[in-house]
């Protein structure tokens, strides 16, 4: 019975062709990325990556010395300097363009804005569209309890959130493999940089092959996207129009990010879900916008947001009067 409900939801989602649009958007973006990486590779053929990396570190340090940049930026820049230096000291190029590295980078780069937005697009259709098209009246007058219907929608949305991430990862390999070195899954990576206050600690740094590092990053990103999917389900229940629910998600992602970056003094900002969203970035060693945002904190925070959103969504969906 429940499987039949899920089958219905999957069918509707595919029939609306939204997932095709999502895959299309990722394909276009990844093609552009792959082209730019290819050009970078050609330019770097003759260049010395050590010299380039040193130059970049020097540039960051110069800007830090000059001051006049906001504390949040300064912190993440200092962390980045230390991270790059760590690679440089060990004679490892962290940005050797290979197809596997593009796959790995996709988790970080897309995980923060692109994937949440695509999921908001999928999620907004799953409830709002039924309201807007009037089909909710039929859906809710069948002998199936409302919580079961919403659960089928939630499972479907989680399924497609996972699929979006997986297809994104797979596409980033397929699109870049023809033009970049296809191998390189064993390239060494470092992770476990810790940043608390002014101290940047490398005590817990581990060396992992790229494929393992990528798996961890994708795992974190998957978790973050399930949380985003749950929040987007709530917005979809709350708003009658798809545009309003996509818009709210977009505004909170962008607005939240701007807010946390321009006003680092407003420490309550660390409880916004967008602060904790780039889990893969923090795992790689980028500094979160606020102090005291450990990985455990971020994971718990996202989980709490997701649970709160789901409670709100279920209460609203099962209790409310459905008017025209």
């Amino acid at each position, binding site marked *: *019975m429940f499987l*039949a*409900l899920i*089958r*219905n939801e999957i*069918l*509707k989602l595919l*029939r*609306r*062709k939204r997932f095709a649009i999502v895959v299309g958007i990722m394909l276009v973006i990844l093609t552009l990325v792959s082209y730019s990486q290819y050009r970078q590779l050609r330019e770097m053929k003759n260049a010395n990556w050590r010299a380039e990396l040193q130059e970049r570190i020097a540039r960051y340090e110069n800007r830090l010395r000059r001051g006049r940049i906001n504390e949040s930026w300064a912190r993440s820049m200092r962390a980045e300097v230390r991270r790059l230096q760590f690679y440089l000291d060990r004679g490892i190029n962290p940005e050797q363009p290979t197809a596997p590295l593009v796959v790995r980078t996709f988790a970080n780069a897309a995980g923060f804005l692109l994937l949440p937005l695509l999921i908001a697009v999928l999620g907004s259709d799953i409830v709002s569209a039924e309201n807007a*098209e*009037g*089909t909710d*009246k*039929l*859906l*809710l*007058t*069948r*002998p*199936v*309890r409302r919580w079961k219907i919403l659960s089928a929608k939630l499972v479907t949305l989680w399924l497609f959130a996972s699929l979006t991430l997986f297809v994104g990862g797979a596409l980033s390999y397929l699109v870049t493999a023809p033009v970049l070195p296809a191998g390189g899954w064993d390239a060494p990576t470092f992770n476990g940089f810790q940043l608390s206050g002014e101290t940047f600690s490398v005590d817990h740094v581990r060396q992992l092959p790229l494929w393992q590092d990528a798996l961890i990053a994708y795992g974190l990103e998957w978790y973050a996207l399930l949380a985003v999917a749950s929040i987007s389900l709530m917005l979809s229940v709350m708003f009658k129009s798809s545009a309003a629910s996509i818009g709210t998600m977009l505004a909170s992602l962008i607005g939240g990010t701007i807010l946390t970056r321009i006003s680092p003094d407003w420490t309550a900002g660390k409880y916004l879900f967008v602060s904790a969203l780039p889990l893969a970035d923090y795992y790689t060693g980028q500094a979160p916008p606020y102090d005291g945002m450990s990985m455990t904190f971020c994971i718990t925070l996202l989980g709490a947001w997701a649970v709160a959103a789901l409670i709100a969504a279920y209460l609203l969906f099962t209790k409310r*009067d*459905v*008017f*025209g």
Partner: protein
Amino acid sequence: MTGALVAEHLTKIIGKRTIVDDVSFDLRPGEVFGFLGPNGAGKTTTIRMLVGLIRPTRGAITVCGYDIRRHFEKAMRCIGCIVENPDLYRFMTGRENLEHFARMLGVGQSEIERVASLVNLAHRLDQRVGTYSLGMRQRLGIAQAMLGSPRVLILDEPANGLDPAGIREIRELLRNLAAEQGLAVFVSSHLLAEIELTADRVAIIHKGKILRSGTVRELISSQRAMEIRVGDVHRAAEVLRAKGIEVTLTDDTVLAPIEETQAPPLIAALTENGIDVYHARQRVQSLEEMFLDVTGGETVD
């Protein structure tokens, strides 16, 4: 009360407005029940309460013996409905729509074929609903409502937006479903002529209250009168009053609240008294006239 569907003291209050006020009725198997009222009278709110979309502030709804709040699934298995427009998934074909709802009920392919042929839609079933005319969507909506052989069919304004042929087709379909399959059919409308032709019993709702209810025949016969056009209305009135009949007068006719069978001796009496009788006919007040009478001709926005 026993019936396929029983609504008792339904009341819906939103904020300070009472939208539906103490509405009670029951639907019996094999009959078409007409729910009549102007737009904004509370028809749709009542229907949404019957099918579990809106929670009544007070009152109870029992379908096939099951309370809709406590046994939602069992009660809803007994109901098929269209609320307002027949909104189906336009991006899917008719068959995919039926399959979608059949899956929710756990019924199979044969049931889909059955309901599709019931509404004469089998030939267009594999086209997208977006390409359907309103009449076809209305029929697909009824097919959808008939999935799983419900005992109660609830249709909100089924004649809305249909051409005369379509209205007649739907009317005949509903009459057949009630007569042949013993369904209890609930039809709301603001079109009196439509309800008069379709329904066995009628309830008239206005400003959230049921003002009058009964069989269509009862409501009409309570308003029967003979209309007699005569040469001299005042003398005619005298003659009739002498026989104990209260008449009302217009310029050239007297209106007597009597049955047709009582008319011949009275007409004879009139001619015996030298009054010219030009014309006598039974006047039936249409539901429309009665409705305007009952509601005072008010409309609500």
